[in-house]
């Protein structure tokens, strides 16, 4: 158990900046998720923590040791790779026991600890098999077993569930969460799946283009996204965003107008989550449109309408009567509107309106 700190970490390849000035503190026992779209530098950040990639500048500390110049093996961490990284010529027992073997743990002790780790990840029956004779989920558990067998100070997991089917992913997710809380080991977890991030994380760090956009508890980020990118990246379906011009105290776009908050800049992006918008009878909302599709999700219905070129999603009760092609009124909820600067995308909090937490 330990804390981790990244201090102004930069990674460049030639002129290409993969990770730009990332600073991050991870508390002892915390589960931190690095979330972001493909190519945003999540893996690179994690690989620098692991010691598989050198820093261009900056500093990484694990506990109170600066680890910049330490080999991966000297950092006392375990990593689960996206493609598992199992040794195909070794049995499951040998795979799980390899870190102990390298550390020179005597055979007897090693077998005991391999058995214990295998029990934890429910693999005891498969110890004599080779990785190729296991299913994807089982291989994933071998990788987990190998990670926990020597009780490292820090777990690193790079999209460990992305090769599993949807159902297995949900159950493995629960297992990982449970295991992490039980062992109370500081964990950094990389994913591009926002649902994984929301469900697993104590805190989420959202990345884009090599930079951290926002760090916070999942609900905080969901409720108060720091900019338009974070707003649209978290949540499914994602937040509806509208680019508005401000004049004469009104927010305008070609389809509708709303009252502008005081002191609004001349270009403003407003956002509202699908569950905060309402589909009402024509004429009773802020503007009228036509139902593009109406989908039943089970517990709710998802109504999509078209505004200009954009599709807008609205979550409605499942017994909503709207059908494709119906006229529909769309109503914003003034209290849960998000405002972002129309140029920079940065969140703006207004005295009146805006999100009331």
């Amino acid at each position, binding site marked *: 158990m330990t804390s981790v700190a990244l201090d102004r970490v930069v990674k460049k390849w030639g002129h290409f900046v993969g990770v730009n000035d990332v600073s991050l503190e991870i508390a002892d026992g915390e589960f931190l998720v690095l979330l972001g779209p493909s190519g945003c530098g999540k893996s690179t950040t994690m690989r620098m923590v692991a010691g598989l990639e050198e820093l261009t500048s900056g500093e990484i500390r694990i506990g109170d040791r600066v680890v910049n110049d330490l080999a991966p093996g000297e950092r006392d961490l*375990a990593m689960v*790779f996206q493609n598992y990284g199992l040794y*195909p010529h070794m049995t499951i027992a040998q795979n799980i026991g390899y870190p102990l073997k*390298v550390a020179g743990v005597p055979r007897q002790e090693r077998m005991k600890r391999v058995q214990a780790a295998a029990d934890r990840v429910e693999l005891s029956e498969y110890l004599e098999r080779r990785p190729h*004779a296991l299913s994807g989920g089982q291989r994933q558990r071998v990788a987990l077993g190998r990670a926990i067998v020597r009780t490292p100070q820090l777990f690193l997991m790079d999209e460990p569930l992305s090769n599993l089917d949807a159902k297995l992913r949900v159950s493995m997710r629960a297992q990982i969460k449970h295991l992490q809380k039980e062992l109370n080991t500081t964990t950094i977890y990389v994913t591009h799946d926002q649902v994984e991030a929301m469900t697993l994380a104590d805190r989420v760090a959202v990345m884009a283009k090599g930079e951290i956009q926002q760090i916070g508890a999942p609900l905080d980020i969901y409720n108060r996204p720091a900019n338009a990118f974070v707003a649209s990246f978290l949540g499914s379906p994602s937040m509806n965003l509208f680019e508005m011009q401000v004049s004469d105290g009104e927010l305008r776009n070609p389809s509708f107008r709303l009252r502008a908050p005081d002191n609004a800049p001349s270009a403003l992006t407003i956002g509202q989550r699908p569950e905060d918008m309402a589909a009402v009878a024509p004429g009773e909302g802020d503007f009228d449109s036509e139902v593009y599709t109406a989908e039943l999700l089970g517990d709710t219905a998802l109504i999509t309408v078209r505004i200009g070129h954009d599709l807008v999603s609205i979550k409605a009760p499942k017994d909503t009567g709207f059908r494709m092609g119906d006229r529909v009124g769309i109503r914003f909820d003034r209290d849960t509107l998000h405002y972002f600067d129309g140029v920079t995308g940065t969140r703006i909090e207004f005295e009146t309106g805006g999100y009331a937490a």
Partner: protein
Amino acid sequence: MTRHAKRLRIAGLSVLQIVVAALVLLPFFWMLSVSFKPATEAFAIPAELWPRNPTLENYVLALRPEFRRYFLNSMIVSGATLAITIPLGLLAAYSLSRFQYRILSVFLAMVVLAQFFPAGAMIIPIYKIVRSAGLLDTYASLIIAYITVTLPVAIWMMRGFLMRVPRTLEEAAAIDGASPLRAFVDIVIPLARPGIVATSVFVLIVTWQEFLFALSFTSSKEMRTLPVGMNDYIGQYGVRYGELMASSVMISVPVIAVFFFLQRQFVAGLTAGAVKG
């Protein structure tokens, strides 16, 4: 394609395979056959496929003390070449497979290019070098000459196999605490084993049958290798075909045995299951 047409196609292909196999195997069969024929039968006309009166006489004659000496020499020269080429080539190939070198493509092109030079074109300069180094008529002369031939190809071959070992596995080993050398020994070598075995077989075959260097660099009977020693049977007044073929069979046996026992090793696919699947 209908089922009927498919069957016809398979039948046609099978016949073709048998014909090709027969063409390839005929000389070997002839070698075996002649080695069991008494001298009077070897070149009887019309030629007969099977020996009429099979005999071991040729083998008994062929197993002279000289032959045993040649055999030993061949083993020493081939073995030493192998023992030096493989470890050296493996380390070089590993380096070339894991690091970017600007000269890499030049090196690889040179390896391929070197294969186009006939040995006959290089024999005189190499002979001069060997002579001025005072190495004529020694094992060292042959071992060094063979390494210059086998090492570049071995590096080239093994690099191909090493490139197929996923890097993630070495990274996993590094995280598990292994030094780069340890990861190489524990992870990379076992996974590249089919390639190492295949390369070893290549080295053995090249050195075992090499004739020109061996003929040029050795002069005493004590230093001769098998292919040169076979010359003994080709005399001024005739060729002792029976004995020649019997010793040919005995020379081939080790090569065939190596192939037979290592066949399974060639089957790659050992990396199956390393990464998703």
